[in-house]
């Protein structure tokens, strides 16, 4: 439950919106959408895009996970960590990642049942995590807490696993209850999980630790109750989140300068004044996607045709209409019409049968 009273550098922008800091998944989504000043500013102000969409823009937002998926995820984690040796320990050991010391931070610092005291519990969990990591020697920290700082804004992230090997180097891991289907495993889901790991990795580096740029992904093994462990490089995801850490403060400052004093993100005018950058990823990552698509259509932004098409067309190309297409686009349209046996004259194309090309 978000705590409305929690302050922070972005508190003045929140207005009536609840304090909802992004977790690792939200931060990585923001890193992927870092061309969008609106998304970056929402992230830095620590408000949820879904709240902005519904409150400021009156959008009907349907987001979140199914309770069935959440229940399955929790059950999978319980299943992995139950017993000695646990399935998780065995699976990690088979991949050369086993350690003698396994610290379950959630047992050391239980989360209070209500939202009240959550921040304090997370702070204590972070302290417990850092204490274990400071001790030296190989150890596995289960569901610890860390802080990642972008500019002056601190975000608490909770990586499922932090594994320190004998040499003191750290790897971050994520546990996902979806199946490891080998090469057919969803690349998008994998990238998102790797992104969460990259955020945890950044938090560790900011805390002065030496990390290995590899993610430990613990997935469900198909037709089995065991875990499947993957160790994958996080090169792209690490680069993205590092870029974001450098760029976010400047992007947010630039966006703020466009707003009149006293603007808050619960106001429609504020959100409308912010630059957006609609793209292919928006529908997967942002609750403002419908609104942004409408805006992009109104502006003739070729991004509505997809990132690939947008790369070939100049901004506003769709506003000019069939009689004033840019020359290169006109040549391609002519070639298309020629091949389909229709007219090559753009005026005739505009007046042609609207139901069939």
């Amino acid at each position: 439950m978000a705590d409305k009273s929690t302050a922070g550098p972005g508190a003045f922008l929140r207005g009536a919106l609840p304090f909802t800091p992004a977790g690792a998944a939200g931060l990585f989504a923001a890193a992927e959408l870092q061309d969008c000043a609106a998304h970056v500013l929402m992230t830095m102000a620590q408000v949820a895009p879904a709240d902005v969409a519904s409150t400021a823009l009156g959008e009907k937002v349907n987001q979140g996970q199914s309770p069935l998926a959440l229940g399955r995820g929790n059950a999978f984690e319980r299943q992995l960590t139950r017993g000695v040796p646990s399935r998780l320990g065995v699976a990690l050991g088979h991949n050369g990642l086993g350690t003698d010391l396994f610290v379950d931070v959630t047992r050391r610092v239980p989360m209070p049942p209500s939202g009240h005291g959550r921040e304090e519990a997370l702070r204590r969990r972070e302290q417990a995590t850092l204490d274990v990591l400071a001790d030296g020697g190989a150890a596995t920290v289960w569901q610890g807490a860390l802080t990642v700082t972008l500019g002056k804004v601190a975000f608490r992230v909770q990586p499922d696993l932090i594994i320190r090997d004998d040499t003191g180097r750290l790897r971050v891991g994520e546990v996902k209850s979806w199946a490891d289907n080998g090469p057919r495993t969803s690349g998008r889901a994998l990238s998102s999980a790797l992104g969460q790991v990259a955020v945890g990795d950044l938090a560790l580096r900011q805390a002065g630790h030496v990390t290995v740029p590899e993610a430990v992904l613990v997935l469900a093994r198909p037709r089995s109750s065991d875990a499947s462990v993957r160790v994958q490089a996080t090169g792209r995801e690490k680069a993205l989140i590092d870029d974001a850490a450098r760029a976010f403060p400047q992007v947010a400052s630039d966006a703020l300068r466009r707003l009149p004093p006293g603007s808050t993100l619960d106001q429609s005018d504020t959100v409308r004044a912010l630059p957006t950058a609609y793209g292919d990823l928006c529908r997967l990552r942002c609750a403002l996607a419908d609104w942004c698509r409408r805006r992009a259509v109104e502006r003739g932004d070729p991004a509505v045709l997809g990132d690939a098409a947008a790369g070939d067309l100049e901004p506003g190309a769709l506003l000019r209409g069939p009689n004033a297409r840019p020359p290169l686009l006109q040549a391609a349209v002519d070639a298309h019409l020629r091949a389909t046996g229709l007219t090559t004259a753009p005026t005739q194309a505009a007046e042609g049968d609207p139901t069939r090309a």
Partner: protein
Amino acid sequence: MPDLVTAARVLAHERQTVVDVTTTLRLKVAPHALILSLAGMAGEHDGVLHAFTAGPADGTRETHAVPDPRDRDTQAALWSELARIVDRTWQRALDDRTFPQVLVSGTAALDHLTQVAERLRNNTRVPDDARLLGQRLSYWVDRADVPGQQSVVVATTALREHLVTGMSPGEEEHLGAFLEWCAPGPGMPADASLLERVELAERHATGPARRPEDDRGVLVPALDRYSLAQLLGDPVEILAAAEAVGAALRPALRHQTRLLRDAHAVLTGLGLPELPDVARPDDPRNALDRLRDAETNAFSTWCAYLDRPVHPISGLDGNVAAAYRLARHESANAALSAAVVLGDPLAREAAVLAGTALRGRVLRVTQRAPADRPGAWSRTVLQVTLTGPGVPRAGQTWHLAAPGAAPWRVDATTPGQDGTVKITVSRPGRADTTGCAPGATIDLVRDVPDWDAARRAAGRLRERDAARSPWLPARTDRSST
């Protein structure tokens, strides 16, 4: 320069309707194709099936649901129902000496079928009919990867192969949104704009995943009621709760099935000529006939394979099988691509723009007759003005994109004045310059389809499968649990 698909997207955006991205039909959807709508369960993997609607597009469809698919017995009952319907499709294909065709909503539905197939096909702990279902689904899953295949119609992919919208490719993966570009769906407000209709369509899941809010609002309470009823052991309440779960699942299945029927109607009503086989004008079969023949051949080979006493279907390919599979894919892709560039004017235009096909206006033709001895080559010098970015290079083989598609080896390319190019080509025997008269526009393509190579590659893969050492009990020895 924008490619032709981008141009088509711009046209679709301007006209607010779909635009063709092909001028020939690449996929023939049967009137009786099996329509299959699936509903999974959020968070569950391994192809857990909560409900489905299945039946021929031109016949009656059945809907079946189970209260809790995590229960192995009820899940097995659902597999049996699906096995029975798939068996009817299979038998009809055998009777008609053709191949079974299934229509699913999108790649997510195909992934779900893949998981069901992998879970069941070699599983000795499930009933025989479920295992047979897994093996039959494996046929579809295996074929789905082959370029030009005709057995598995993934609705969004098949639509995108022929039509394009003014949306992004990612947005086109939503079947409901795509179909709104074709025609307004039932229940859409009459005064709604296309974009508003697309947004309304996107609020419905197209399966097999359900929307989280639907789970929260209806399904989870019904499942909780069912769990409680089971705990209490009240048979009347168990039945009522099971019915409530089914009622929670049916609206989404009905919607998915309606979309699939609409997609079937669009795909069967495209009105495009079938992809011709330009390279073989003497053969009455066109390229689509050849693809369908390949499909029938693959199906009969698979059935023969399933009839063997031992027929392991590996979960993961070994190195050799993987290489054969890749070769099958590449051969099929090469044959299809060549046929498409030769036979589809729009694809040819795109190839010319991309420089992978040549287009030129012939200015002058000079022929040199071959020497008077067997096997001698004739030489022709074409002076042309090339209109695309592609340039022929010595040593390459190009085919004149005309019936018969005569191959020419390029001996030399000499740039001339005023942007003209002299291309010296040779071929065995007498020179044939039909269609290359001065003033004519000629297209040259690199490849012609080699349908036999694709068939040989598929055969090698099947032989490899058959040669694997058996690791399953013979089919007749298997017992159900």
